[in-house]
């Protein structure tokens, strides 16, 4: 009984984590393609550290991520998306608002 409960708890935890993990994986794929290097889902990617993340690429990145997740970031949010973590948070928040 304890073993079954433990498994259920683990499954429940996995279910809770899954949407975020899936979003992070998808973001990592997009960032890897964008910056032409392998980027893992847990990696920290900041605009200040990426030579290719200029104002032009920023707008393109915002459009690509909006398209991939079916969301729209208002301008005041989009300009503050200066890291992969920030994008992950914004995707979560925007998708949450839509539900």
């Amino acid at each position: 009984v304890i073993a079954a409960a433990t498994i259920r708890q683990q499954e429940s935890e996995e279910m809770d984590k899954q949407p975020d993990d899936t979003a992070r994986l998808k973001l990592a794929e997009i960032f890897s393609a964008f910056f032409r290097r392998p980027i893992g889902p847990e990696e920290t990617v900041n605009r200040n550290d990426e030579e290719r993340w200029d104002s032009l690429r920023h707008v393109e990145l915002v459009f690509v991520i909006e398209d991939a997740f079916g969301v729209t970031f208002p301008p005041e949010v989009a300009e503050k998306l200066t890291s992969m973590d920030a994008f992950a948070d914004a995707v979560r928040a925007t998708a949450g608002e839509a539900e």
Partner: protein
Amino acid sequence: VSGAIAGKRISEDWRFHHVGVASPNLVREVANWLAIGYVEEADVFEDPLQGVRGVFLTGPGPRLEILEPLSGSTVLDDWIGRGIRIYHQAFEVSRIDKALSLTLSVGAKTQRPPVPAVAFGGRLISFVMQPNMNLIEFIETPQLEVNS
């Protein structure tokens, strides 16, 4: 069709000015356009704020703004690196704030907020990108309002 009608309203007071051409070497680039009938419309300009040196050409096609990056500037690297030469089209507008607000209302995003540009005697320019990655430059030209 209704979208097209609304779109016409957004751009009804825009006047086409040029297409922008990114090049790693201004002299070599210009020589190629001169060879097919373009001529220099004005002197070469340098804009440290934009990080570019450029020249306008007129000829058998639309006016061209040929640009090369100033030393140390990376502003055109991405286009040049991707092999994209013609990378923006520019329109004169009577009020840049109005043009920005209207294009943003149809999904565009500001790539560069208004800044004074050497190429246009210090008039304001701004860049917006549409979701299809079409890059548009606005050049504020207040006298257009009289004509529109």
